[in-house]
């Protein structure tokens, strides 16, 4: 591997890591901070991707689709919380697993009924469809770099929200002691509804942004679910920076695993997870 190629592989790792952070960010909120074992996270991602497909077909522009789709996903998340998840906070984790697993099946079947089982594509907006030449044979799509930029902005935004705002303070307090927060006169139900809806909107945003490069297909939610949990767990449950570091670590492990030890590339990610958890059982940056 010559040096240029090595540098390009590092770029690939960073870019993939950031994309993984984007995909896992919704779960950081819902699982990491609210403590709900949300197996339907992948479904929200899938819903986002299909929203992008449907709205792009309708409006002809992905950016417009995202602007329209985000509030839709947020409202959908709030409704879902009001209808189902609100009843689960004080219950056993097993019941959360059952409900969210059920939701996977329902969403997948609804998707099949509404849109069908074909593979669909979403076009990259013309503004970002160019590629930047890197070597004589290889160039890099601008859209991927754009996604990376969005991910970095998102990481900073999430951190700021959680650590530097009053809302973030209330959320963190609520995740420690619901009853005490309520006793202090904060509407904990509304607070949780907002956070959950935000988590769903983030998962959907990830699906929408990834739709042009990943294509839109049945079962796409399942492909991101496990990796999202891996990232949240090794990052340290509840930590935004931890999730970012974990995502980058996985990005590097996956990219260089494929290049250097293709026979065991499937293991690389889980090997990293095992090592990190042996070293720090609570994850890289455990909060509280």
């Amino acid at each position: 591997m010559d040096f240029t190629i090595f540098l390009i592989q590092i770029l690939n790792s960073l870019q993939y890591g950031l994309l993984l952070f984007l995909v896992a960010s919704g779960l950081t909120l819902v699982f990491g901070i609210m403590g709900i074992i949300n197996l339907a996270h992948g479904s929200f991602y899938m819903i986002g991707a299909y929203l992008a497909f449907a709205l792009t077909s309708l409006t002809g522009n992905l950016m417009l689709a995202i602007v329209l789709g985000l509030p839709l996903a947020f409202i959908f998340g709030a409704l879902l919380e009001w209808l189902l998840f609100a009843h689960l906070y004080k219950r056993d984790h097993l019941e959360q697993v059952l409900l969210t697993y059920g939701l996977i099946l329902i969403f997948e079947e609804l998707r099949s009924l509404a849109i069908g089982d074909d593979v669909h594509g979403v076009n990259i907006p013309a503004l970002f469809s160019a590629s930047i030449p890197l070597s004589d044979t290889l160039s890099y799509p601008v859209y991927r770099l754009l996604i990376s930029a969005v991910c970095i902005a998102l990481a900073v935004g999430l951190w700021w929200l959680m650590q530097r705002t009053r809302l973030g303070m209330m959320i963190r307090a609520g995740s420690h002691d619901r009853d005490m927060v309520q006793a202090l006169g904060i509407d904990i139900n509304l607070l949780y509804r907002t956070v959950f809806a935000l988590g769903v909107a983030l998962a959907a945003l990830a699906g929408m942004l990834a739709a042009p490069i990943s294509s839109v297909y049945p079962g796409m939610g399942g492909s991101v679910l496990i990796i999202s949990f891996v990232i949240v767990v090794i990052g340290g449950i509840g930590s935004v920076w931890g999730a970012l570091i974990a995502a980058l670590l996985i990005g590097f492990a996956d990219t260089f695993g494929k290049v250097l030890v293709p026979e065991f590339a499937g293991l690389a990610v889980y090997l990293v997870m095992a090592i990190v958890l042996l070293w720090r059982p609570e994850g890289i940056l455990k909060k509280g």
Partner: protein
Amino acid sequence: MKQARRNAVRTLAALTVGALLPIGAAQAAEKIKVGLMLPYTGTFAALGTAITNGFKQYVAEQGGTLAGREVEYFVVDDESDPAKATENANKLVKRDQVDVLVGTVHSGVALAMAKVARDNKTLMIIPNAGADELTGPLCAPNVFRTSFSNWQPGYAMGKVAAEKGHKTAVTMSWKYAAGDEASNGFAKGFEASGGKVLKHLTLPFPNVEFQALLTEIASLKPEAVYVFFAGGGAVKFVKDYEAAGLKNSIPLYSSGFLTDGTLAAMGGSGEGLLTALHYADGLENAKDKAFRNTYATTYKLQPDVYAVQGYDAAQLLKAGLDAVKGGKLEQPAMIKAMEAATIDSPRGAFTLSKAHNPVQDIYLRKAEGQENKVVSVAAAKLADPARGCRM
């Protein structure tokens, strides 16, 4: 020795059939019980439906019967789940006592089905699954295939790539049986005609993060690239290949599944891709035209290669039934007739190899708009080498 064993197997088969028949014969002497074990939900649902449609279309063309027998269907959704495959196949064979198992799409499921078929001496027709083993080391007198082996389109593509003057190639697929078999076929075809495969790149199934391997392709600078991907992964790969700027510098070749049913989703990225498969759009034969017209009017859908494979499964079964007239379903006679049959397929007529895999023309196709237009015959009357088949 081999002959003796074969005779023993046949006798055993005849005895089993003979022992079972009186029960069946008492209620339904005329009927043929067909067990359709195909995916009707999940990723491959559309394929299962197309195969079923094709099969039923041929039966309908025969006036609703096969060789004069009424067809009774027993349908199981295999969900493309290998873990449930043995149980599902057993349901059809043991509970419903079907005369023939038809299925399936997913190779892992088909392998489990074939084991049940072998153990119970049930006739089986595979209308898609391409695993080489099915008509290789695991071949059996009662197991037939009307589709292809993964090796076939790969080999034909390798031959064409070498004929186009490429000297070096890199192959790439998911790390699973189908990908390895197809890439292996490509390497055989390519190297037999003087090319050299530099490297076989793999990534774990169903991972679709191709960037690292695309970078490696760019650094290896081969003259051609062969890939085996299907479905959502195929769409993503073709888009990424173009976005990485490789489409214009290194020609991309593939087995036909890359561009079957995925061209719309690829947008313009798929335009002009060359692929090899045993079926194509724009074949100039009357059988294909008639087939496509009937299919389109009956199901309000455009037929695809899967529908053709289902249609041919029914044709092959009829060839077997013709041999036993209206009488008992004697398996040895049926197998003999099926082995000797020439199937008048929409893809062009084909016969079966000794291992029961189609000996067929593999077409070179070019993606134009939403169609994979036939360019030429990449390999005529290509037979799978059936390595490891002793029959």
